[in-house]
């Protein structure tokens, strides 16, 4: 992997900036290509980028009802997930947003049903009213009703409104059908009030003032919903920003003084956790370098040059406080020494790439060895993970989650003909089964691996779990 050129290589910050100017579709395409080229990689940047993109989609896209919005977000989400299926955080964020929209919809419907009792939100009511007139109803009416209740998430709803309306109005005129029940009629009916029969002989004559109120309400509610959803996404973004600090807040509960802690690679979550604990305790941290994929970053980190992900200015590199400056003794070891040194380790703290609903996790390569060695020495293994890394996906074949990296970092061309004669593997991630993990610390607290499925259930709606492969939906 080539080192990232400073400034020019597109990354999360560049992407965020581009969001302001570019159109929605351009932004989607942009993110897809960034994901494909791994220019945005690792859970947090991916999650951030996805949330930012979805916010733009919700805020700028023209949508009139939640069903359409959900369909659209599902579509965008599907494209993003297909671009980088192994970044499970992307799918997680999409699911979170979808679940939130559904919640908003439900709430909205409940409110309207209670305070107005009008036709917009409650289909039963709507169906019950025209019941006496069904005999007079033209066959198209069923279509009309189906298309009316947009809040019902009929995702394949036809979007071609004008022809429908004209045909409808003509029917309405011909059959003397009251037109007020449908929202489509509202627009056309108010546009041509003379076509509407005067309410005297209509059974619903008293409902004529409703159209105006309804249309008003609809516009308002869409606006409200839009703001609500955007707010919700911003909340997710806030969560993503604070998640490391929230996890770090639990540090003192888990680290006692004079402890020896083993961790590997360079995770900001783990670093912040250790730094927080170092405020009050003195301890030793052993860091395995996770050669060959993450050793450069790990070396930089132990030299006190760990980049602060929250720093906004990209030209000025700000570093996190080094562990040593916080009073921690840092010992760097090779990955091979893990078993040898494990007998002195009190706790293993691992960062993770993604957590799977069964309590297993996908983490930087080498994590499995560490967890297994810890198990062999009965050393507790703690995994730090934001809730956003928790994925409801549960693949049958865990190898499918593993991404393979550049074998050139193991055997390069300087090794001569070895390159072409030999099979070289360089997996970037390991799957760690749940029985090797003793504890998960998320921003919500500490959980046993067996409890994770409950948190998954709390965060994602069952109907969104398989949004990206519709064949598994039902």
């Amino acid at each position, binding site marked *: 992997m080539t080192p990232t050129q400073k400034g020019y290589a597109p990354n999360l910050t560049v992407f965020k900036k581009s969001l302001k100017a570019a159109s929605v579709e351009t932004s989607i395409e942009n993110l897809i290509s960034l994901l494909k080229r791994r220019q945005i990689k690792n859970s947090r940047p991916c999650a951030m980028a996805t949330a930012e993109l979805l916010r733009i989609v919700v805020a700028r896209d023209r949508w009139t009802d939640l069903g359409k919005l959900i369909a659209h977000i599902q579509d965008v989400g599907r494209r993003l997930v297909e671009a980088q299926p192994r970044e499970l955080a992307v799918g997680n964020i999409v699911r979170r947003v979808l679940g939130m929209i559904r919640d908003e919809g439900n709430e909205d419907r409940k409110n309207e049903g209670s305070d107005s009792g009008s036709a917009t939100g409650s289909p039963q009511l709507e169906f019950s009213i025209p019941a006496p007139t069904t005999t007079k109803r033209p066959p198209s009416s069923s279509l009309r009703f189906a298309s009316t209740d947009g809040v019902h998430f009929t995702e394949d709803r036809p979007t071609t409104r004008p022809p429908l309306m004209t045909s409808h109005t003509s029917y309405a005129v011909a059959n003397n059908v009251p037109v007020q029940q449908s929202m489509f009629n509202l627009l056309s009916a108010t546009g041509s009030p003379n076509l509407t029969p005067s309410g005297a002989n209509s059974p619903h004559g008293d409902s004529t003032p409703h159209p105006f109120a309804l249309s008003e309400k609809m516009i308002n509610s869409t606006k409200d919903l839009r703001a609500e959803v955007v707010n919700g996404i911003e909340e997710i973004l806030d969560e993503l920003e604070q998640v490391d600090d929230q996890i770090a807040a639990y540090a003192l509960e888990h680290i006692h003084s004079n402890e020896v802690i083993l961790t590997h690679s360079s995770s900001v979550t783990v670093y912040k956790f250790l730094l927080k604990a170092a405020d009050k305790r003195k301890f030793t941290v052993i860091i395995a370098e996770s050669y060959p994929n993450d050793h450069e970053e790990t070396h930089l980190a132990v030299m006190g040059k760990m980049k602060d992900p929250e720093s906004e200015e990209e030209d000025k590199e700000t570093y996190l406080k080094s562990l040593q400056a916080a009073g921690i003794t840092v010992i760097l070891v090779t990955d091979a020494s893990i*078993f*040898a040194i494990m007998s002195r380790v009190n706790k293993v703290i691992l960062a993770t790439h993604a957590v799977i609903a069964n309590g297993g996790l996908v983490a930087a390569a080498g994590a499995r*060895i560490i967890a297994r060695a810890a198990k062999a020495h009965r050393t507790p293994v703690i995994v730090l993970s934001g809730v956003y890394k928790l994925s409801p996906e549960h693949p049958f074949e865990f190898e499918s989650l593993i991404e393979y990296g550049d074998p050139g970092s193991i055997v390069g061309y300087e090794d001569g*003909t070895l390159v072409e004669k030999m099979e070289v593997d360089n997996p970037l991630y390991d799957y760690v089964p749940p029985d090797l993990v003793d504890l998960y610390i998320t921003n919500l607290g500490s959980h046993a691996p067996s409890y994770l499925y409950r948190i998954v259930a709390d965060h994602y709606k069952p109907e969104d779990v398989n949004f990206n492969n519709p064949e598994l939906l039902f």
Partner: protein
Amino acid sequence: MPSTDSPSAVETSQPEVAAPLAQTQPNGKGKQPEGAQQSSANTEKSKSNSNGKPAGNAQETSSTKKLTPAELKKKAKEEKAARRAQTVAAKEAESAPAAPELSPAGPSTVPQPAGGTSGSQQRGDGQKGSRTQQRTGGPVGNSRNLPFRGSQKVAAATAAPVVPKKEDKTVEFFRHLYRQRTTSIADASKEVHPAVLALGLQMGNYTICGSCARLVAMLQAFKSVIEAYTTPPGNSLTRHLTSHVLSPQIDYLASCRPISISMGNAIRWLKLEISKVDVDTPEAEAKKDLCGAIDVFLQERVTYADKLIAKKAAGKIKDGDVIMTYAKSSVVQRTLLRAFSKGKRFKVIVVDSRPLHEGKHLAAALVNLGMDVQYCLLNGLVHVIQNVTKVLLGAHAMMSNGRLFARVGTAIVAMEANEADKPVIVLCETIKFTERVALDSIVHNEIAPADELVTPGGPLTNWEDMKKLQICNMMYDVTPAEYLHMIVTESGNVPPTAVPVLHRMGNESG
């Protein structure tokens, strides 16, 4: 300097005793510029503590003559305990402002009568103050006259670069294993034979690497030492050779890289051989006998042993097998070559690790013969282990409790193989068996220079300047016996529990 101060302190007033003592404390730690001034021995980093201590104690006795011996003893004990606690705990400056406050605490207790337990108490306070001072870094600790603290600080800051303090970069729980390695022949003693000189350097930079290779090379070099040896008049070969000629060679080799267990076994055997030489044997004949014995030993214990092991182990490789091995072992390589030359077609997965990348050499050797080789580092181990049918491991030594002492990382491979239910077979000559036992990899190990882990131009350049950063580069680890299923030796295939038996038969009967 403090020694001139303290007598006056005794005469004038007790409280001041605390202050100079407080200042001697940092000296004891040896990290202060003052410490270096006080005694040159203090610059020696790891031993500085013990060196500094007597000075401090002597001064203490001189300053508080009125104390009874028992009290003195007690006080010394307290001090020692405090100092020990200080060195053990890894600490950091968190009380930079607290330090100046603590030090004046000594003068504030002026009315205290001289001597007695209260005096020692007070001294303890002063110590603590100095300790925190010291943690904040050199400059503050230097300020001996508090009123001039500010200016003193500046002075100390300018003085600091002159005598840079050196942090102990050794990892605490491996501290007993650190040895300074000889990397040049400049300071070798004149008794060392040129062949041994060269060999030492080759071992030091891993040109000759591996338990067996080092053993063979050492004995060959000793052969030339013996051939070049002439018994000085008035001495007998039996008495003189071992102690006066062989020992410097061994010391030199050990200074280049610690002696391996197989080398230790061979040295013990050679010494026994020499002691068995009859005093009446003419020197030329004795030398010839010894060289002959070395040749026989090498043939029996290494050459034929390797051949036999390779033959036996190769018989266990079947067509279609997937053999995993870790790093590089000469006998594993020989086994694979033999099986391949017998027409077996199998795949080899070589697992490797930093920093030596020995497996790459093995992989290259196998690939050049046209074998099917897959290569990965430890990060890829768990992804390839499912397809493996057998794991062949080399050994540095077999411990008497059945544990395998081998290149660091071997334990991980054995552990994963065991977890995946793959048979783990160790190929090991009986010369590598030892009566030593090992429970962990920390008590007995070899620590290589940490700089071997630093990639030139990489982020770790100048890592010594980073405070509280230690790099640990150990060479071996101990694999629990339960991960090993079979040990193939020249005396038969045995379970790990049979190691002590074979060791008694092979290495101690001779």
